[in-house]
């Protein structure tokens, strides 16, 4: 099977933010909304949900290896991760719709990725009691990573300089809305929907093996310790960064001269980007926005 050719993928100028049911979005994630909203989930689907740049690709790859690494090893070298784990709401000209890719996935289960906040996730996922794996990343590192992503991805609104971007992030004026609402939305959903595994990026960096084991337990997989160890090695950041099937280097919408899709993957890199003043201001805003939640993040490990 050949690597798909997306050179015909075409973008106008960078998209503008629009308000979509109370959430900041762009047309690349709303133009196909009827099909997204009415997407028919299956009971054995696995929805991988994150705020952008919180470890989506990492977890997608882990799941793919857990389920299909042995069964269909050829996928690992012939299909980019974004084909194996469709991006549900995606709607770029020249690319298959996210919903189409998901509907035509030949696998069972179907791993599907979304950045939608919890209230915009198609109802069928909840009705079918599908499994949801949510990965959250501390706000500061998430902001840094999102900034660099917006710099290199022509399918995102123009980020401006770091100071401008950070202000927008604190105000919640980013695609898929405020980070605070996103992480809290799924945290609250977890109280009433038991089929959500809420994971932290920082825990994954600290002890990937332990988190892979947690994931197996949640998914009801009886993967051997040896196999889990092999997968853990294969999903190390530097390995994925070099892997054309996971580093998004096959997508023309991204300008990798500006920044690689997978940049550092670290916890604590925010300390190299925030000024001391920005950090103080951010902490003040964060304290206010997060005062009504019990979810806790670590900004270093």
């Amino acid at each position: 099977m050949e690597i798909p050719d997306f050179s015909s993928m075409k973008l106008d100028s960078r998209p503008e933010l629009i308000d979509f049911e109370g959430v900041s979005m762009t047309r690349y994630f709303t133009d196909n909304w009827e099909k997204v909203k009415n997407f028919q989930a299956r009971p054995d689907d696995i929805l991988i949900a994150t705020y952008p740049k919180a470890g989506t690709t990492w977890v997608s790859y882990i799941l793919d290896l857990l389920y299909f690494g042995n069964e269909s090893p050829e996928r690992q070298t012939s299909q980019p991760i974004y084909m194996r784990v469709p991006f549900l709401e995606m709607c770029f000209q020249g690319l298959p719709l996210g919903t189409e890719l998901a509907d035509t996935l030949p696998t069972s289960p179907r791993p599907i990725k979304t950045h939608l906040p919890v209230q915009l996730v198609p109802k069928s996922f909840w009705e079918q009691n599908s499994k949801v794996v949510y990965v959250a990343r501390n706000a500061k590192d998430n902001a840094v990573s999102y900034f660099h992503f917006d710099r290199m991805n022509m399918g995102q609104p123009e980020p401006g300089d770091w100071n401008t971007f950070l202000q927008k992030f604190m105000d919640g004026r980013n695609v898929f809305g405020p980070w605070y609402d996103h992480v809290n939305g799924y945290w609250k959903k977890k109280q009433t929907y038991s089929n959500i595994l809420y994971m932290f990026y920082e825990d994954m960096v600290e002890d990937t093996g332990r988190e892979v084991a947690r994931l197996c337990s949640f998914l009801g997989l009886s993967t051997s310790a040896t196999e889990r160890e092999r997968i853990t090695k294969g999903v190390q950041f530097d390995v994925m960064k070099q892997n054309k099937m996971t580093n998004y280097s096959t997508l023309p919408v991204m300008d990798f001269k500006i920044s690689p899709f997978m940049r550092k993957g670290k916890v604590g890199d925010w300390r190299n980007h925030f000024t001391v003043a920005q950090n103080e201001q951010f902490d003040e805003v964060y304290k206010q926005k997060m005062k009504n939640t019990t979810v806790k993040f670590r900004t270093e490990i």
Partner: protein
Amino acid sequence: MEQEPLSYEEAITRAADAIQRFPLKDVQGVPLMSTIADNWKSISEFCPDPSDLLISTYPKAGTTWTQEIVDLLLNNGDAQVCKRAPTAVRIPFLEICAPPPIPSGLELLKQMKPPRVIKTHLPIQLVPVGFWQNKCKVIYMARNAKDNLVSYFHFDRMNLTQPEPGPWDGYIHKFMKGQLGWGSWYDHVKGYWKESKERNILYILYEDMKENPSREIKRIMHYLDLSVSEDVINKIVQLTSFHVMKDNPMANYSYIPKAVFDQSISAFMRKGEVGDWVNHFTPAQSKMFDEDYTNQMKDVDIPFRLNI
């Protein structure tokens, strides 16, 4: 018939073509502008009059501020007298050498009669021995390392005779290693601190001046054996406030042509604050810097403050 001497501004304009970012050269272990290093013998042999006053600072530590305060004290707060010429002409920069026809510091000093006020950035070990032998008074102004570093960085961006600063992160490392013009900030502030009693140096902190200018101006007044009224002190405080000085063409270096000082990149008098470093240092840079600072400064207890 002799040609009328050029104004300072005109001289700089004529020299504009020869202006470049001059490299640094080593003078007794201290990196100095090549134009200074090349003229080192004359500079080191300068012999002041006992009545001369030296104002010394590390670059961007409040030099101009101190110069203006001293000039106003010496002239009983007379603002007009203190606008008789640009700061650099009223109070020559001892070691500065620039392309002709810009007069060097030494040339300007030669034309002046004592008592003179002289500015230098030289570390204490490079100050011409005549200042000590003749027991001249020396006022030293020091500024906390982080704010000094930020200010020096922006100065190097706009002063086209200084070496190219490069990116901020690398600049921090050059500062810590003492690789900037006039050498190590650590050595500079410590050198004067350790000798301040023995050599009767008045050691002033930028942060103290910022917090209570009236008190600090009186310290200078007493040191200089001057006596001016409370009204004059208050007037000097007002005349040397950041915003007044920033708009004073005789103090803000706006007369320097853009080919030399490109103030569209950064104003010579940029913010004049204590604590602006928090807008520049990342927490990682701040932590790394603090570690270096702790090591470098463990033999002294100079009470710098990072905010007031």
